[in-house]
């Protein structure tokens, strides 16, 4: 009897494993192994990516571990440095890079018009990477370009607009984001400079979309807001309470303070009536054409969008989330909630609006 049970159990295990093996084999396309072999033969992958060790680790650490035969050349810089360089290189006939990863505005504004990107869909052969059910609002909603084929945002972090230092201002004192215009907050707000591309501009745009141009003009012009480009300084100011209200607080910077037990007094203000948006930050990418390592690039693009790649992004990018629903959440406060319709405020369609907002900011901010 005992032996029978043991045999039955063993048979069940073998069956389960064989099914799992079949499912796994089905998850990979038939030419996957050939792709891996070709990529390993190329031996290198060149990525122009966002700056900072945090993003570098999140984007390539797992890949290097998985494919030690493929050396990853990773050049980290912000879009304002990276894009003019790539554009000039390509205009001079130098094609050194396989993949560009970074915020959508610069590459869509300067690299797309010179035809620098190849369409992504033909490169994405891993079913798991493009599984519609696994991506918030479907896979296609991540495309940032008008044609929906060149530049893809995998990041799914919501725009956290307003934070308070709860030691100085009770979060209940601010019922809605428009309360910021109350004169009692004049001189107490710090904001990442909205005259340049970035989170500060994104927040200003959301204010404009929610309350209209007249409101944001008045807010920026009259509230004696402190504008800074130093994200760490901005975070430190609200943590210390020098300025108790912060717009466009960088969550990755706050996380650095929280890790050491500082900044627990900084709380996000919720406002359900404010427009909800996804701010992909640096979490978007495109495959460059005339790339030197086409197979390695294809392999990486597929795996970046897989559970493995997106898990690394969510866990190691310092508080960012993925648009994939089957990976861990990096920042619960900025996670996408089911049933809510978010706008993508950095798509190509929004570029004109962003530029207009930057222009308004330059006009109205006292100097």
């Amino acid at each position, binding site marked *: 009897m005992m032996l029978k049970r043991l045999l039955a159990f063993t048979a069940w295990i073998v069956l389960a494993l064989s099914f799992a093996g079949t499912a796994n084999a089905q998850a990979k396309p038939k030419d996957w192994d050939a792709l891996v072999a070709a990529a390993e033969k190329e031996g290198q992958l060149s990525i122009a990516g966002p*700056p*900072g*060790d*945090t*993003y570098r680790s999140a984007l390539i650490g797992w890949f290097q571990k998985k494919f030690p035969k493929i050396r990853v*050349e*990773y*050049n*980290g*810089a*912000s*879009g*304002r*440095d990276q*894009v*003019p*360089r790539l*554009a*000039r*290189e390509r*205009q*001079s006939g*130098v094609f050194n890079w396989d993949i560009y990863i970074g*915020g959508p*505005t*610069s590459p869509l*504004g*300067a*690299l*797309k*018009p*010179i035809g620098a990107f190849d369409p992504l869909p033909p490169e994405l052969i891993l079913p798991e990477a493009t599984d519609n059910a696994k991506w918030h609002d479907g896979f296609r909603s991540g495309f940032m370009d008008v044609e929906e084929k060149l530049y893809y945002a995998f990041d799914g972090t919501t725009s956290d607009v307003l934070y308070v230092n709860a030691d100085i201002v009770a979060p209940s004192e601010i019922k809605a984001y428009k309360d910021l215009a109350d004169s009692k907050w004049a001189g107490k707000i710090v904001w990442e*400079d909205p*005259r*340049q*591309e970035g989170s500060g501009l994104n927040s200003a745009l959301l204010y404009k979309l929610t309350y209209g141009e007249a409101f944001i003009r008045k807010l920026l012009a009259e509230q004696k807001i*402190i*504008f*800074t*480009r*130093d*994200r760490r*300084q901005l*975070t*430190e100011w609200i943590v*210390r309470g*020098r300025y108790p209200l912060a717009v466009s607080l960088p969550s*990755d*910077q706050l996380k*650095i*303070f929280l890790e*050491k*037990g*500082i900044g627990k007094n900084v709380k996000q203000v919720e406002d359900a009536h404010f427009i909800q948006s996804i701010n992909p930050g640096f979490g978007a990418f495109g495959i460059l054409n005339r790339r030197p390592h086409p197979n390695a690039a294809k392999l990486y693009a597929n795996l970046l969008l897989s559970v493995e790649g997106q898990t690394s992004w969510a866990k190691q990018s*310092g508080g960012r989330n993925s648009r994939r629903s089957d990976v861990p959440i990096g920042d619960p406060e900025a996670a996408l909630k089911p049933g809510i319709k978010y706008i993508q405020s950095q798509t190509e369609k929004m570029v004109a609006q962003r530029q207009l907002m*930057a222009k308004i900011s*330059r*006009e109205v901010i*006292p*100097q």
Partner: protein
Amino acid sequence: MAGPRIPAVGARLRAWRGSLNGGVILMALLIGVMGFYVIYPLVLILINSFNTATIAEPPVYGLQAWRDAFSEPGIWRSLWNSIRVGVTLQIVALPIGICISWLLARTNIYGAGVFELFFWISFIMPTVATTFGWMLLLDPNTGLVNTTIRGWPIIGSITFDIYSFWGIIWAHLVSNGISTKVMLMTPAFRRMDASLEEASRMSGASTWTTMWRITVPMMTPVIIVVVLLSVIRIFSSFETELLLGVPWGFYVYSTKIVDLARQEPPLVNQAAALGSIILVFLAAVIPLQRRLISRRQFTTVTGHFKPRIVDLGAWRLPATLLVALVVFILDFVPILSVLGGSFMTRFGFFHLPKTWTTEYWRMALGDPRLTNALENTLIVAVSAAVIGATLFSLIGYVIVRTKLPGRSILDSICWLPSAIPGVLSGLGLLWLFLGTPVFRPLYGTIFLIIIAYILGGITLSTQIFKANFVQLGNELEEASRMSGAGFWRTYWTVVLPLMAQTMVMVGVIKFMFAAQHASSIILLATSETRTLILLALDQVFSGHREVASITVVFIMTLTLGVALIARSFGLKVGIRAE
């Protein structure tokens, strides 16, 4: 002063100068190389200022970028603010710099050598580190100084606010406003012939009268160069104003240029239009400095050279204490800021359960990128220092000591790069290297970074040499030529040893420039050729300012080590007051 010449000497000199008509080739070569490197990117920048298309579109030329740039809100006020900061800073810093240089080089204050070393240390401190340090002390709400004195009687009501006009002036003074002047003027004071000072005192003038009536006028070339370099720096300095001015709405001209160049996508053409105005300003300054320096005779090191020091008598101790106080202010805060910051759990947070940690040092030392960046920094900085100092000494010598045609062109070329903020010159270099087929195979290698750094800091290096050559009498060179030595032999065996301290100083400045300046190479480097400063920027971006402090400690230690070695070598072979 130069002694009477005998006709034979004149004949030999003419013959020697004639032989330099291989020298015309030398001049053509220098103008060609420097012109290509300096003028070509500037022309590209200027052309771009008329290009109204974005970087992705084919060029369309017009004046729209100029119109847009000069209709930027607050642009004229920012220009006025730059002038206010620059002029105020010079009014305060120049007299202090002159006094300290004179005390160090020409008097018997205690520990002059040690003090001078500390001014070098202050000079090599990154401006941003100094500014952060003072923000920690003088923030009106949380600054250590303000919170400490708040309960004190009488002065308790005073608040020192670093975020103010005078806060900005203070930050400039203590970062390099004073130390640059001391660095540049002390060697020149040291080389000055004491004969005139002695004559003054023999005529009954006091030490101070002699200093202001004799010594300072003799130092005119160096002082003019120092002032002009500082004035031009008004238009390129922006880190301090960005940190201390922007929070209360105080903008300077360079902040505006950087703003435009760092838009996404960058508005390079508008930034270039604003940068072009500085070129116009320079066009006025260059002839002015040539005229000022050429009007009088400033030779101080001659065949009769007597370097002597002045006995301060009863003023010796007070003067020593005064310099010690300045050194303390200049060095203590930034060293504490950089070194202390690297051991703090969070920079500036003194009330945490665990304030101090070695975690970041372990993190930094275990990072293989640090070793790679250190190696790259050493390669590029040593190459830039050695090759750059040699090249610029030759340029300075040719401009000051020969009658070759084209000297004023070469001189003007050397002034031009100082007009363009780093963010624009970095773009210019990228265009230069990618647009020139001969450089393209080197693109992505460390050689281009070395070339960028060798030729970086042209203005400062050349002007230092020029100012010092103007002070150098020509009898020793004439003696060399009389003994049959040619141009190159005289240059290597007579001129360079006399200029050893200046060579060392320029070498150290170039080393420091290469170790600390990122903007000119940020578009040229790759992960393989990344230097320490680029690594530090990367760490700052990640929010790991504490780890970046460690990288800065490495940069400072490297620079200081090189400065000490070079200085001891320079003092051995150079001229010292006894």
